[in-house]
């Protein structure tokens, strides 16, 4: 039996992260956690981009996931991590399934801007909700994981990190198999020519609907995981700049493989963090120049760099 390369790499990466991170400094673990949270959002964006759609409003689901997880405590007193994540998945799935009925008719910039309008409306609603702290947001607390008390223990951070790694691994593996499935392969066909896909007897609308919901759930997961890792959420997560950042990382990463989003997110987060530290006055410029370099010299995104490296040695 042939073993799938991507699955091997994913599993090895998961094992490496789980095994070595405890020996890394704390900030590195946090950097990986944040990168993985972004990565899982970008994984969903990648599916949309493959289908030919770019959303400037995925902050909507990222934020919704975070609030679906975070408001459980103030509303119902629930602090179980598994329930919080389940709630994020359920809420984003329902909302995106409804909005997709409308959005699946849109393409190009109109899809992008209508998504943006929806995410900005959520932003506005949250800003108006002073019981949830308006733009200040509120702190998210986790007390238990599958009934096990983890709050304020020495391994709390690691457990949350490990859970993030496992979820990301699962999502990436499932996405990888999906992309190889019959329907998954339709994505690029739709991007290239919808009419042909329709003539062949496949439903463009249904496929886009499904992909939209899948990417929304992934964004919701990313938001919920980010909420518990950072410990604080605010409406900024739905603001258009957040969505813009996701688009940015998606293009930066490239859409060649399910590994690309995670690598891209890690590299983006590292660059941003070091730019903050070493040029606090001009970090935007550093970020912009890096971005231009990647677009200029790596048209396939950062992923093409790794692909090229592996091809050369092979």
């Amino acid at each position: 039996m042939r073993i799938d390369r991507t699955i091997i790499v994913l599993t090895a990466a998961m094992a490496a992260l789980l095994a070595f991170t405890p020996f890394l400094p704390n900030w590195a673990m946090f950097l990986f956690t944040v990168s993985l949270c972004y990565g899982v959002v970008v994984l969903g964006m990648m599916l949309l981009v493959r289908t030919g759609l770019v959303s400037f409003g995925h902050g909507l689901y990222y934020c919704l996931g975070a609030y679906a997880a975070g408001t459980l405590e103030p509303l119902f007193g629930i602090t179980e991590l598994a329930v919080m994540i389940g709630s994020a998945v359920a809420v984003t799935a329902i909302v995106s399934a409804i909005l997709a009925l409308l959005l699946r008719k849109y393409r190009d910039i109109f899809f992008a801007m209508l998504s943006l309008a929806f995410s900005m409306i959520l932003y506005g609603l949250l800003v108006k909700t002073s019981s949830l702290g308006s733009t200040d947001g509120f702190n998210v607390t986790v007390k238990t994981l599958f009934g096990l008390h983890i709050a304020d223990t020495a391994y709390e951070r690691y457990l949350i990190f490990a859970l993030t790694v496992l979820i990301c691994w699962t999502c990436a593996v499932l996405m990888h198999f999906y992309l190889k499935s019959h329907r998954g392969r339709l994505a690029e066909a739709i991007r290239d020519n919808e009419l042909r896909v329709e003539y062949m007897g496949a439903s463009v609308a249904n496929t886009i609907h499904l992909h939209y919901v899948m990417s929304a759930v992934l964004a919701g997961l990313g938001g919920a995981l980010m909420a518990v890792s950072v410990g604080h959420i605010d409406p900024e997560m739905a603001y258009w700049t957040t969505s813009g950042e996701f688009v940015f990382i998606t293009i930066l990463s490239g859409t060649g493989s399910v590994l690309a989003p995670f690598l891209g997110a890690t590299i983006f987060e590292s660059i941003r963090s070091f730019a903050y530290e070493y040029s606090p006055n001009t970090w935007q410029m550093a970020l912009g120049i890096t971005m231009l370099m990647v677009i200029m010299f790596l048209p396939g995104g950062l992923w093409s760099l790794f692909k090229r490296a592996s091809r050369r040695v092979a």
Partner: protein
Amino acid sequence: MTTLVAVLVDGLIYSSWLFIMAIGLTLIYGVMKILNIAHGSLFALGAYTAASLAGHWFEQGYLPMGSYAIMLLAAILVGIVAGPLLERGLLRFMYGRDEIVLVLVTYATFLILEDFIKLVWGVDPYFLYQPYGLLGSFDIGELTYPNYNLLLLAMSVAIGGILAWTLTRTRYGKILIAVIHDREMAASQGVNVSLVYFVTFTLGAMLGALGGALTAPMISVQPGIGAETIVLAFAVVVIGGLGSLPGAALAALLVGIVRAATIHFRPELDLFSIYFVMAAVLIARPKGLFSAQEARKI
């Protein structure tokens, strides 16, 4: 005086401002299919340049009325320096790439320019308030409005009119429409597409800077003004139907009136108004108010 009149006047003033913000964006998109996020930086550059030059003008004690010419000059200056620099130095290497990649290129440019502005002008805000009050004011019922608002209105009508006339009545306009319709076909007919792009982008940059220069007397010119403006301009352009001049005008009017009505009747909803309009228009007309018919490619 009824509230309705106030809504109309406030709405119209805001609309004319919005239209000036959006027109350069819609021109560049219409011709080059680039959603230019760096438009926000050009706006900021225009505002900063106008504020410094006209500020210097006032300090020297020259004729105050001359400041309007200086503001115009600032916009032209920014346009002819930044426009060619961006188009020739960066964008022309990207033509033919995916639309979204071009958006990111302009976004990266926006980030770089944002810090560039900070390095040149610092973080302290600049002021250029004199031109706003210099022209006197007019009264409508119990409300007073500076005549500067009329200047904005006149500018927006003039710019819109000249552009529309150029597009429909002149040779350059016809070439432009040919390029918009089919770039390759136009090129094969002997149109110098690269020159058309160059001129269009420079003109668009100039209009962006003009928006900034005209706004400078009403605000304090400070870091971050570009980012706030760009979303508004985007919304107007999309509501109007990308690349459509009458569309942008109508969209600006619609957004302006709705916003003014919100402020007068339900001020707490102002935060949403523009996005509600955008969502509503796009739901009713998926490609904006005015959209060009596209040939289906099978």
